[in-house]
């Protein structure tokens, strides 16, 4: 399992902004699994942070990681 967080417009799509979710080995696989469960995500821009790290491109996901779905920021 991983600990999944969603923010902004992505949180509007998922039923809960914070939930447990089946583990995927990397962010590409997780993205595919999420889009399967929530087809609206296909058209929404977001990056995936693994343990608060937003790597350029795809990255591996350790089991038990905190994984966050981050749409474009709009602070400030």
């Amino acid at each position: 399992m991983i600990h999944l967080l969603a923010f902004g417009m992505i949180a509007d799509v998922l039923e809960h902004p914070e939930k447990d979710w089946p583990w995927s080995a990397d962010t590409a696989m997780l993205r595919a699994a999420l889009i399967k469960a929530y087809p609206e995500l296909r058209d929404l821009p977001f990056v995936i942070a693994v343990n608060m790290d937003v790597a350029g491109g795809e990255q591996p996901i350790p089991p038990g990681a905190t994984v966050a779905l981050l749409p474009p920021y709009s602070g400030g």
Partner: protein
Amino acid sequence: MKNIFIQGSIAASFIGESIAKHQSKTDIGAHAIFLGQVRADVIDGQPVSRIDYTAYEDMALQKVHEIREAAFDKYPLTCMHIYHSLGSVGVGEISFFVFVSSAHRAAAFDALREIVDAIKADVPIWGKEIFAEGQGSWKVNQ
């Protein structure tokens, strides 16, 4: 890690008090301040009445910490204060406050702009513009 979040808007009096606290630091010659204020933009004919801010707080504080350290490494700054609202901030109210001080003005100007740009680009905070009728639209930074 220093907290930056303030629940609701940032009061003008808080900014004044923050300035006053620096009068004991007599090596400061220049303060540069940025304030973000909520605009009454009209989106698809609907006027914005407030912005509701949320953040990935742990990651945001980590990112701000990195931005702060990078600015202190790059510029000869005396001090730096960063605040951002969470929750509702009404039109005309302040949601973002960056305050940089240095002996001479060039460092304060350069650092202020870099810090503001970096926070807008790299810190996971989201604003949802709420219309008078109650619905909302997720904000996108320029």
